[in-house]
């Protein structure tokens, strides 16, 4: 096992050569070029947000420099109240999501749980479901006394109709965790798949039980992926908007994002400056978590894939394998299938939320499928999704490479920059993108949406690659270089094949984010550029939920098709020797 030096992963020693020649090599230019690119995609919009906090009006509008936004927010007791409430929801939500995702990924990657492909497909499917209709479906399912689940429980157990209440802290935590777990599962699964099974076998041969092996072998090796996923999940929880807006507000639960919304959209005149101050506080909070992550991983080695080759042997869970199967299936049925069925039924009802034979209609489907603008939304969304995911993967691989495999002095800055777009709530970051990109000649085209989505996807994809790269031994790269392989050839022939599962996973993640994300694109997709996510949102919040359900289902089909195509193209890579499940 290779040992890391002062940072995550082990860096390959660059081949020696004349200085002038070396400086022209791609690996020498790469960090700088990446930094410039990421600065354009991230720092420039972020700079507009920071400027906005010190400006008395929206950037570009007449105003003056002021500290009023900061003093107003920092002296307002509501700021600290919503911060505490947000933490009270985000922390348990993150822990629950992480536990569920790790357990699911471990069962599927490392044990003999039956129906693994099916279970993986079901969890991936859950990730595809769009958020807003999913939340609305849960309002229908989990309202106390009158919700469908509540009524079923009431019929089964006396007083059961009052057992479920989605309008509560519990509702926000459980539903939030159910929403995050499939995403985290996608993060943790490749890391578990790439883990050398001989370590587990050695532990078992030494007499360790399955649980002891999990705790002493799998868990420490998974730490980078778990930390990255945990932080990501925490940030997602802190910036979650639809859930607290729809389920928290009626229960008098206000969080950071609903406060930002109130400031930006709730007053007589939009107070974007104060909203941005809150967003920067959130950035500071989550940014400090990255520093914690660095400190935790410093000086430790996580390399499990070396030149030796390995073969994964599934752990025998005995009869427990059926319990694992049942638990994952139950999770899917409750949090995936039920809301999906509600969504599907809603699309065939005269009025969403009122499911009965006499309300059955196909009008919404006929209307949606017969509209030119829906067709344009589909084609625009597909083009944006494919382009943003592909560009995002390319940029993220190189960022992760520079961060984990080079000694470049600015790599931590690059890592931090790549993280920032995720740590700022989309409501505010979208303003930053708007104010930054409106000056570019590509404003008003699909490309401006693509750029914003690439930036938005960087943290996800770069975390994805980083957590996998730190598991790969530098000796593979070194041996290729020793045998005369150029940096580019080594990258293409050694790194890429080893990263293929992560590439596929990251591409799918970015594609789904690009197709589904709303907050980032709502201000950029204007006349001439249509996105399904914006149409779903507008139709849903303005009383055409049935039509919104149709579009949400079309969107779900799109991401499933994207996922299927990506998996098909990558099948050979996924079935390389040594990476069978």
């Amino acid at each position: 096992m290779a040992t890391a030096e002062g940072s995550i992963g082990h860096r390959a020693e660059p081949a020696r050569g004349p200085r002038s020649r070396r400086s022209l090599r791609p690996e020498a230019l790469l960090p700088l070029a990446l930094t410039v690119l990421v600065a354009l995609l991230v720092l420039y919009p972020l700079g507009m947000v920071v400027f906005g906090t010190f400006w008395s009006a929206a950037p570009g509008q007449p105003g003056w420099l002021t500290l009023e936004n900061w003093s107003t927010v920092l002296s307002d007791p509501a700021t600290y109240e919503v911060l505490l409430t947000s933490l009270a929801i985000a922390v348990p939500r993150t822990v629950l999501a992480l536990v569920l995702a790790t357990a699911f990924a471990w069962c599927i990657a490392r044990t003999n749980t039956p129906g693994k492909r099916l279970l993986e497909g079901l969890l991936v499917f859950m990730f595809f479901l769009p958020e807003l209709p999913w939340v609305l479906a849960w309002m229908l399912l989990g309202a106390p006394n009158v919700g469908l689940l509540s009524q079923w429980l009431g019929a089964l157990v006396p007083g059961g109709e009052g057992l479920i209440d989605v309008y509560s802290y519990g509702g926000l935590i459980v539903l939030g965790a159910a929403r995050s777990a499939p995403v985290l599962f996608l993060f943790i699964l490749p890391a578990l798949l790439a883990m050398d099974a001989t370590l587990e076998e050695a532990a078992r041969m030494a007499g360790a039980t399955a649980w002891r092996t999990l705790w002493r072998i799998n868990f420490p090796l998974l730490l980078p992926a778990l930390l990255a996923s945990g932080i990501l999940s925490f940030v997602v929880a802190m910036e979650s908007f639809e859930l607290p807006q729809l389920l928290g507000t009626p229960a008098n639960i206000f969080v950071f994002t609903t406060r930002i919304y109130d400031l930006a959209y709730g007053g007589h005149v939009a107070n974007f400056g104060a909203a941005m101050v809150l967003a920067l506080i959130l950035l500071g909070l989550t940014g400090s978590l990255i520093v914690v992550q660095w400190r935790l991983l410093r000086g430790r080695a996580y390399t499990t894939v070396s030149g030796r080759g390995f073969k994964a042997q599934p752990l025998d869970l005995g009869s427990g394998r059926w319990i694992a199967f049942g638990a994952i299936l139950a999770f899917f049925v409750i949090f995936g299938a039920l809301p999906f069925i509600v969504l599907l039924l809603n699309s065939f009802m005269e009025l969403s939320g009122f499911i009965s034979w006499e309300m059955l209609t196909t009008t919404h489907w006929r209307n949606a499928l017969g509209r030119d603008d829906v067709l344009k939304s589909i084609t625009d969304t597909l083009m944006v999704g494919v382009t943003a995911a592909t560009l995002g993967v390319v940029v993220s691989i190189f960022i992760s490479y520079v961060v984990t495999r080079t000694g470049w002095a600015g790599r931590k800055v690059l890592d931090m920059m790549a993280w920032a777009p995720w740590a700022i709530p989309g409501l505010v970051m979208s303003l930053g993108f708007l104010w930054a990109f409106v000056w570019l000649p590509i404003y008003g085209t699909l490309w401006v949406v693509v750029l914003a989505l690439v930036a938005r996807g960087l943290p996800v994809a770069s975390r994805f690659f980083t957590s996998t790269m730190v598991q790969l031994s530098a000796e593979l790269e070194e041996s290729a270089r020793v045998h005369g392989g150029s940096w580019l050839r080594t990258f293409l022939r050694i790194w890429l094949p080893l990263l293929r599962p992560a590439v596929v996973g990251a591409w799918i993640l970015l594609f789904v984010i690009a197709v589904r994300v709303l907050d980032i694109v709502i201000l950029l997709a204007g006349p001439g550029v249509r996105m399904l996510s914006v149409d779903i949102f507008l139709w849903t919040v303005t009383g055409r939920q049935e039509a919104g359900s149709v579009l949400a289902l079309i969107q779900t089909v799109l991401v499933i098709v994207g996922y299927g195509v990506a998996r098909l193209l990558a099948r050979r890579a996924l079935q390389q020797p040594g990476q069978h499940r």
Partner: protein
Amino acid sequence: MKRRDALSQIGSVLGLASLGTAANAQTESKESWEQVVAAAKKEGLVVWSFFGAPGAATERQAREFEQLYGIRVELAPARTGDFEARWNAERAAGKASIDIRSSGSPENRRLAARGLDQSFGTLPAAAEPGVPWIIDPLVDVKAGNGHTLMTSAGGYFILVNNRLCPPEKGPRSYKELEDPKYKGLIVLSEPIGPSPGSRWAAYAWKAYGDDHLRKVIDNVKALTRAEIEAPKQIARGEYGIFIHPTQVGAADIWKLPKPHPFRLVVPEDGVMLLTGGTSLLKDAPHPNAARVFMNYTLTKSAQQINADDPGGPFIRKDVTPKVPELAHFTTAKPFPNNPDTYEFGSKLFFEWSAKAEPYLKAAGLKK
């Protein structure tokens, strides 16, 4: 007698002269309007931003307008905040893409108060003789209060679940909502921004004062920001009373099989009315096409398209609403001192609705 004849003759001459002047003016006006239409056709495009999503009416109007004038209509639906953020950024960069904005009149009046709209000149449809307007489309323009064109009208109901709150139990008016017997039954649209709850708070405070506001808020069980979902929650029996949907919000649940599990109460103390406005925006890239489109929105044909939507808002009384029960705003008694004025929309709306804030906090409904 001669004198009278002479006066009569002078009168006739003057009358003819004035008729001639009117005819000339009309011809001139017609000619200048034809020039506007010609310029509009040359522009070939109008970008129409409005609150909400494209609906059957907006799309039908866009299609009909395109057929009539050969000018393409690009729909740019957006919430108020999104519209303003985008439009402000575009204007700062010299890339304004939106021509007209339609929304609730407070939004348009705020644009007017900040000088962000511009004159749309004379619109033939607004001056059409004999049209029974619910409200004069030029009410603000004539008063010198900016350039908002009123293009629709609507009104609120009190929505009540029949099981949780049987008809004999009331309520029949806004005033009655302060009765403690309604405690725990009410879901209130959160008074935030330009929400229906803000309008209720502003109007109720103005009519009945602080004590009324406090008493009603004491009866509130929950606040909602999902104004579209709330009527369904009433129909399902999650809450007893919703303050308060417009006819557009109520139109959704009207589709439910009869007998309805809910009732729409037209308050005895009056209907809170609201108007919808359209503004020709400053820096509009297609000002002539925008003017022609604004003119079109006032025509009977365009207004009938609005009225064809169940609960659709309209401003002419000479159209036929699809569901007459949802068109109470055309005939109902307005709420006392119904202050849907320029000053209210541009300023007082938010000042008055803010009166609810301390009572919401005291009732534990808001932090």
